[in-house]
């Protein structure tokens, strides 16, 4: 293992992380809910009366955030998608199924779960890190 110092961005990543922490804290303080993106998306599949509006509004916020970034601050987010089309489809299926089955993803278990010191979320994080490491290694070094 060696660190790629040119790609490493400790400052912006720490700052971005703080913003994520403020967003999840504000969400639970103001609205009493866990800001878990997969949970909020998944809840739209079987919408309970009156409970779909806030889900849509929050997701619209995330969806339109790059537009604010581009038009307000002239910052265009860099997004390089290495995966090909079949990989994107399989990845989407696995991420959707897995997050729903495990009741959470990188935001719900990752950020909120650790912030709540939840043992369940710690197990979830260790599990998805392990399979993530393995799949990334296989893809980049064995195939």
């Amino acid at each position, binding site marked *: 293992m*060696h660190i*790629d110092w040119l*790609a*490493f961005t400790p400052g912006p*990543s720490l*700052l*971005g992380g703080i*913003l*994520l922490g*403020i*967003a999840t*804290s*504000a969400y*639970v303080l*103001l*609205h009493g809910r*866990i800001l878990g993106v997969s949970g909020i*998306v998944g*809840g739209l*599949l079987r919408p309970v009366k009156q409970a779909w509006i806030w889900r849509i509004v*929050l997701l*619209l*916020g*995330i969806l*339109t*955030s*790059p537009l604010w*970034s581009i038009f307000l601050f002239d910052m265009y987010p860099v*997004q390089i*998608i*290495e995966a090909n089309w079949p990989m*994107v489809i*399989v990845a*989407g299926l*696995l*991420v*959707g*199924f*897995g*997050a*729903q*089955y*495990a009741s959470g*993803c990188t*935001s719900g*278990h990752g*950020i909120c779960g*650790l912030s*709540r010191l*939840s043992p*369940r979320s710690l*197990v*979830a994080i260790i*599990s998805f890190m*392990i*399979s*993530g490491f393995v799949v*990334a*290694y296989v893809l*980049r070094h064995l195939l």
Partner: protein
Amino acid sequence: MRMSCVTSCENVMKKQFSLLSQYLIGVLFGFGLMISGMSNPQKILNFLDITGPWDPSLLFVMLGAVVVGLCGFYVVSKRSQSFFGGTLHLPAKKEITRPLVIGSLIFGAGWGLAGFCPGPAIVALGVGHLKALIFVLAMLAGMEICERFFTSIPKAD
């Protein structure tokens, strides 16, 4: 009569403010993902591939998010209601279950395959990446498959 009008106007205002704050929190969350670099699938893969030239930035994202989050969730643990007056909807489950572990392993495999998790995929959809649209549609399909064939317990709202 007048009193009831005032309270109902207040309730409507409260509801609008509540929705506005939901939107702004979503925007803030999106900015957090973009500034931290986590909305870039390549950067995620450069973290997950620990044997290649390694980019440990994700650890700093978690550090920033969790230090702030610990404070936020500590304050919440002292309260019985949210600031907008609703009840707290916090996860009650404590047991480490098979679905938790197996689901997370499957989730991680998908994460390592494309470098996308749900939040960043929605940001990429907003930027207009066609692959993000396909990813999100496949993700919804995956959720639906799980909901239809693998979950028996109804989810809370």
